[in-house]
């Protein structure tokens, strides 16, 4: 039998606020343990939560960017469970009245464009961080708790089971991350845990509309891991089903090194979180006017930008996709395009040589001015330098931030051209290499390339190899 995977994702996103969700402690990452804590986020008795305006605004903006229906009234609830990283023994979250319902994100899957629908988006708070004194949580004799992270604002995005493969899940996550970066909701750093993803996956016979028994997959710390874990879990379930067995509802851990999912606990006796309305926080009311105000502050979204990059600059769809996925690079491109008309040429230089040289030289894009690249391209266009020199210059520009024009002048990099200048050099090379001329005359093309190289070496790369080649041919004949 052929099976189809049905996958839904739960994505936790830390919101980019200065202070925590319910108190004024800093959200800075990497500070000394327990220094960003106060009676509220440590859950001291008698303390009370007060909502962070910016956290609400960011979540609303994310919901709007994802076409969700922002609810006029949403309610905070306590999710009760005991764990040493949870200071109050409950997490303030939203349960049956979330901030936003519905919504979708359109994705370019290999099979075509499709909407992945969302169930809801809600606000909640982070737990603290546990550091285990051993290889894994269960082997450690004890653990250390750092509450710096406790109370950082979180947004949870829950999709409908609209995805059908690990690859689709990864593509969705990549597009979602990009959207959230564009809106400025989160820094989406998976390595720092500011974006995390859990998945639910079940299998069903292809074509069936019923849902099979699902498992929950956790412990995936990169998009690549999500893809691999879901492919692996789908295979595991398929093996069970193909052998006539039944999938047991469970939570599975992705063990990256072993490249497999391992069921860690049965979900049979599903956890009872004893949700109830948080009595310390009245309902969150979001009047339509406020929602509209926030909508007006939404920046251009990735999909919109791609469309515009194609229309305004004549980029290919794939090119637009490529450059828009690195917003600073796309910004650089658009800034440069204000003063440079050959957009495709510009695009190729940015996406090609610039990206390569940034990586090679370890330079940050922020330190590079678009004007310098334009100056360089203009020198090239006017024929004042050749392409190899242009590439060399780019390295120098990135390293020193100097003007290409000045570099050309000071280092005497201007292109060498014209019969009068080149002919003596050509003559010198021919004189010194009679056997190469012989070889060329016998029809060996490589010999000409060798001679061109010699002339180029004499000009320190500043001549146009094309022109040199022509001159050589003329002379030999």
């Amino acid at each position, binding site marked *: 039998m052929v099976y189809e995977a049905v996958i839904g994702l739960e994505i936790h996103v830390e919101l980019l606020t200065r202070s925590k969700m319910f108190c004024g402690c800093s959200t800075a990452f990497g500070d000394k343990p327990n220094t960003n804590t*106060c*009676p509220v986020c*440590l*859950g*001291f*008795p*008698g*303390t*009370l*939560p*007060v*909502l962070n305006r910016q956290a609400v605004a960011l979540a609303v903006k994310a919901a709007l960017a994802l076409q969700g229906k922002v609810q006029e009234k949403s309610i905070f609830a*306590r999710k*009760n469970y*005991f764990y*040493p990283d949870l*200071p*109050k*023994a*409950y997490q303030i979250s939203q349960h049956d009245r979330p901030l936003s319902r519905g919504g979708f994100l359109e994705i370019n899957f290999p099979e075509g464009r499709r909407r992945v629908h969302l169930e809801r988006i809600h606000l909640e708070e982070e737990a603290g961080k546990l550091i285990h004194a051993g290889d894994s949580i269960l082997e450690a004799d004890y653990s250390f*708790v750092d509450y710096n992270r406790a109370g950082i604002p979180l947004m949870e995005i829950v999709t409908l089971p609209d995805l059908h493969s690990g690859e689709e899940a990864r593509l969705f996550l990549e597009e979602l991350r990009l959207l959230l970066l564009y809106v400025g909701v989160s820094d989406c750093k998976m390595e720092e845990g500011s974006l995390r993803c859990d998945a639910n996956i079940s299998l069903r016979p292809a074509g069936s509309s019923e849902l099979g028994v699902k498992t929950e997959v956790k412990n995936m710390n990169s998009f690549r891991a999500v893809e691999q874990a879901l492919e692996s879990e789908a295979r595991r379930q398929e093996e069970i089903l193909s052998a006539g067995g039944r999938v047991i509802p469970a939570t599975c851990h992705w063990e990256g090194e072993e490249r497999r999912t391992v069921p860690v606990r049965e979900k049979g006796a599903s956890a*009872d979180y*004893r*949700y*109830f*309305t948080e*009595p*310390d*926080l*009245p309902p969150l009311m979001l009047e339509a006017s406020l929602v509209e105000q926030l909508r007006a502050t939404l920046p251009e979204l990735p999909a919109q930008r791609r469309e515009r990059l194609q229309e305004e600059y004549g980029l290919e769809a794939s090119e637009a996709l490529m450059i828009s996925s690195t917003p600073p690079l796309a910004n650089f491109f658009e800034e440069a395009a204000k003063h440079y008309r050959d957009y495709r040429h510009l695009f190729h230089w940015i996406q090609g040589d610039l990206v390569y040289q940034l990586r090679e030289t370890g330079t940050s894009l922020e330190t590079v001015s678009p004007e310098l690249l334009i100056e360089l391209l203009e020198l090239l266009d006017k024929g004042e330098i050749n392409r190899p020199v242009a590439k060399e210059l780019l390295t120098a520009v990135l390293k020193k931030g100097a003007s290409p024009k000045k570099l050309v002048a000071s280092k005497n990099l201007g292109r060498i051209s014209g019969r009068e200048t080149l002919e003596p050099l050509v003559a010198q090379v021919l004189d010194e290499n009679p056997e190469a001329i012989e070889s060329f005359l016998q029809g060996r093309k490589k010999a000409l390339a060798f001679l061109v190289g010699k002339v180029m070496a004499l000009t320190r790369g500043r001549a146009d190899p094309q022109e040199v080649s022509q001159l050589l041919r003329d002379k030999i004949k």
Partner: protein
Amino acid sequence: MELFEMTAAGLSRLLQTEEISAVEVVESFLGRIEKVDPYVKAFITVSAEQALQTAAAVDRQRAGGEKLHPLAGVPVAVKDNICTKGVRTTCASRALENFIPPYEATVIAALHRLGLPVLGKTNLDEFAAGASTETSAFFITRNPWDRERVPGGSSGGSAVAVSTGMAPLALGSDTGGSIRQPAAFCGLTGLRPTYGRVSRYGMVPLASSLDQVGPLAMDATDCALLQGAIAGYDLLDSTSLPDEVPDYGAQLEKPVSGLRLGIIAEQQGEGFDPEINSAVTRAVRVLKENGVIVDEISLPHQRYALSAYRSLVSAEFSSSLGRFDGVRYGLSQPGENINRMFSQSRGLSFGPAVKGRILLGTYILSAAQYEKYYLPAGRARTLIARDYSEAFQRFDLLVGAVTATPAFKIGAKRGDPHQMALADLCLVGNALAGVPSISVPFGAAGGLPVGVQFTAPPLREDILLRVAYFLEQHRESGTIRPRLSFLEEGGGE
């Protein structure tokens, strides 16, 4: 007359004219505590040093000609579920026996700002989950009118402190009667403010959706003064009300005539001590004689009030007490794994009454029981609140008893939720509705004080205080201080 025998208003006058110093006042009350408290056990912690420091600062400021709050230098006793920075706050629980809060409750910050010295922290039922102060993990507090009887609760320590002259003023907290009932049992004026009128920040919750901090005092004037000092908006409490705080004291002498008073059918009459009924009747009569318009009113959903109250309180309580796991503060019992550490720490932290409430709340909130017990409680609360708002279309205030009986014997109702709950009958409906109520001492039953309860629309504490003040002027018996004959007999602990 000794300083400790004076009201807060009286002390305020002498302090303002500099006839006495704040240090003298504090010393007088500290002396009184030393002498009386061994017999009644109202205080868990006496913060003499801090109180004297505050008093000395007030005296210096006054000497420097600074304009001070009328209550500057008048000391206060504080219920021990209100956090005091640097001063042990126990909630009368083993869980917090050695807890020193690194933060200040907003009401305490207000007292400090205005120059009211805090004398100490008073006894209560463990985590305020009781109505007799018998479930304190440390000791029971005795009613000074009859030491065989309870002072009421859960703010029993605060009530006894004021009643015996160990403090001129006290703060209590009222979730479902914890200020009003001990006020009635000890002969004091006790105000439960409108929900949100006084900040809850730093008050350890019994039930967040119902808790209010409020004043206990010898009379309406003192009650008004303290209420004025603690009321107001607090950025740290999301349920706090932004409305401006009126000058309660300035309105005490306004005439009562023209006020429309509703007698709550369900809150007096059958089942109530005849002398309590009589007190209500006589209070109504004197008001009527002075131009108050009186009629009867029924609150039909009152019959759900007790069960709704107990359901909501248990649910919230069970959740709010989850944090006592021994990791960050409080009693901590090392265990071989985290489950053992948590359950042993918690098991040793709480007494049986608290454990019972936690388990009941855990049960009620479980997915299987939520719709059976918790959801209907929330609906009943909506209906009860509607009853009150409809009643206030017709009336400016409502009257009934505070309790069905005067103070009962120690041990008489211990552990019997039925008996204890009957005592709450008149106290929880108004709390569920979030409206303010006051217990006014009026009359007596078998030599014990009796209270009459008035309830007003939201934010109309001024009406309650005005009526309380009026009734004081028409009180039949002279003194409302108990005669502390035990002081002569000896036998304090």
